[in-house]
């Protein structure tokens, strides 16, 4: 009984820590700097730039 509780507590703590670290990482990466943008960006359905398309980039 106690063992399983211990295990579950440990597990929840690990998951929580994971999410927390992810949060710290995203703040560091500047994900929270622009909270206006995503709502517009999600409407752009562009294809991701692939390496082949990059090589075709226009010159100035």
């Amino acid at each position: 009984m106690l063992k399983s509780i211990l295990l579950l507590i440990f597990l929840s703590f690990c998951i929580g820590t994971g999410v927390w670290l992810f949060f710290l990482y995203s703040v560091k990466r500047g994900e929270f700097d622009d909270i206006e943008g995503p709502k517009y960006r999600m409407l752009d359905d562009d294809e991701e730039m692939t390496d082949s398309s990059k090589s075709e980039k226009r010159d100035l």
Partner: protein
Amino acid sequence: MSNDDLCIHCSLPISPVDLVTDEIDGKQLRFCCHGCRSAYQIICGAGLNRFYQREDRQSDSLKETRSAQFDDEYLQRYVRKRDERSEIHLLVDGIRCASCIWLIEHILQQSRGIESARVNFATHRVLIFFDDEQISPAEICLQLINIGYLPRPFSLDELQRSAEKERTELLFRFGTAAFLSMQLMGFSLALYAGYFQGIDPTSRTLLQFFAAIVTTPVVFYSGYPFLRGAWFSLRNRTPNMDLLIALGSLSAYFFSIYALFTHGEVYFDTAAMIITLILAGRLFESGARRKASAGVDKLLQLTPARAIRLHDDGSMTTVDCSQLSPGDRIKVEAGERFPTDGRIVSGATEVDEAAVTGEPLPVLREAGCNITSGTLNLTGSLEVMVTAAAADSFVARVASLVEQAQARKAPIQGLADRIATLFIPFVILVALATFIIWYGHPEALMHAITVLVVACPCALGLATPTAVMVATGRAAETGILFRGGDILESCAGLSRIAFDKTGTLTGGKPQVVSMTPQTGTENQLLQLAATAESGSKHPLARGIIEEALKRNLHYPRTTGSKTVPGRGIELKTANGLLLAGSRRFLADHDIETPRTEVVGASAVHIALNGNYRGAINLKDQVRDEAAAVISKLNKEGFSTLLLTGDQPSTARQVADLLTIENWQAELTPADKAQVIEDELKKGKRIMMVGDGINDAPALTAATVGCALAGSTDIAVESADIILARPDLGKLYFALKLSRRSLRVIRQNLLWAFTYNLVAIPLAASGKLLPVYGAAAMAISSICVVANSLRLRNLEEESC
């Protein structure tokens, strides 16, 4: 490169793969993409073909002179090297909507050498990663110039850097606290359940132990700002809210640690919760403050840092603006912002002064006119005489205002601070007394600590921030921005309200009130006037055209009219020269006008072929809701006051119409501020409502300044409340909301006190079982939060 290779819409080179051709009006046109073709069709469909003939689209020399400013040597200062790639921050002027951002990002990302470009929607900053062997910073800037945006290299100054760091830190602290508190809740719930249903001691100790682990960082890392604040307040011997919060959470924390080892009940949740909730409040508040100053920040950063100085021998050099001194002559190209205040020496242009005056329409400026730094030169190339060093310019003065506003104390609470001053010594005294009375008893220290814990300032600490948070949130929903929590409080204590007239009580849009035709009918006169004014964007011209449309009059839409700034407009027609303008304008053409002035109105006189035809009188109408709002305010016991720079007759008329008790006319901006200060000296708390740059001193002087949407940036920056829609009904709601929230705060504090009044004696006498203490603490906090949440439901009445 011949013109055939360029897209007719965006003037960018067309790559053969993407070529889109279309036949429009019998002409074969070439576009670089379908988007440009659609844009072209839309523009032409709206009858705006002229756009493609505009000078700034045609001349390449313009682009060259503009891009001359962006030499690599200068830009190199802003480039940062990171590993293999370089990065540069550019602030881009001219972004209006999401499509602009889409365009900028994609144009840049398609260029060789640019790895990524990302625009921040809120700040309009672009972060570009590029390979400096393939592309130079100047070339990047040139690309942006080519598609019509004006880039500006950008680096944060020390102050902004520290402000941004502080914000990130706050986010870190809050995120950590929130995560750990959630974990803690799980353990606490189990412990509470265990208390009532029974739990074996090993599990209990284990859970308590886990609770201690997760609480420690919340108290010492997330709560660090409070601990530091408490330490400073102790050193200065001025108890404040920080001390209260620190005392509450620390005493709960250490008591629980003690209880953990003596197998008592723990209160880690109390310690963690108060810190988490108050951090949430701070985060919310810092967001609101930033939003309020964002516009001015942008303006400051957009003002160019370099200017082209003209020398007497005709040569030009590019210099830093800080080197400019009054008397220097500089060249300002179309599309540039003026780097400092000055006077136009030669050239004429339209200037977008929206940032300074709030006027959305461009204003004509020519030789001899003064221009203000930060405004945008739209159409012509100018020679400007500098009248103020960059450090004394208008924009620099705004900058210092912004700094002052930001330096203002994070204003969660004046009231709670004052209470803390009394409450803390009281609690400490009671705890001491308890210890002394029980001295000798083995439980003496225990009882003393219980007093500290039970007198937990949870409810007291939450009373103000939660109410402020809910109220400012509710206000923001309805389009009212409070600059800080202290504003809510000072709003509630107001007794007088002073209004500016133009743009605040009136709409700033003149409308035709009467016509005095000399010959012919009113409609004929109006038709003539509309013909002359159809090409003009002046507010008076708009009023006339609106009236003509209302009467279903047909008038030819003309081009080629000549505007004489501040005087009127002239147009060559088949029937002779058509003039529309002021009395003085007609006098310049040797036409006599009869004196038929209407009080409070501006007259537009019309003459055709040397014959006077009559006058149209326009009046700036009061806002629809103004009368209702003011009568409501009067009923609520506010005394109202009208302060205007206009003539006394107009002021009296508006004051009578709106039942405003007092009015003062012909005031300069300084006079307005003086009136406010006199009232303050009399001990009255006064609010100023205004919109213009001329109200800014009064807005700052008043107890509370309120600016309307569409106000000039400087008015917005000087104001404490900003109404996001130009609707005076919002003002009434703001006042109501602030009164209501102060009442809620008082109720919260009263409840917190009652709770303490009951709990402390019980704890001091050693009668309070710790677990009931914990439950009571939780209930008192819930009561406070729930009471604050009631503010969400306050409904806005329509006026």
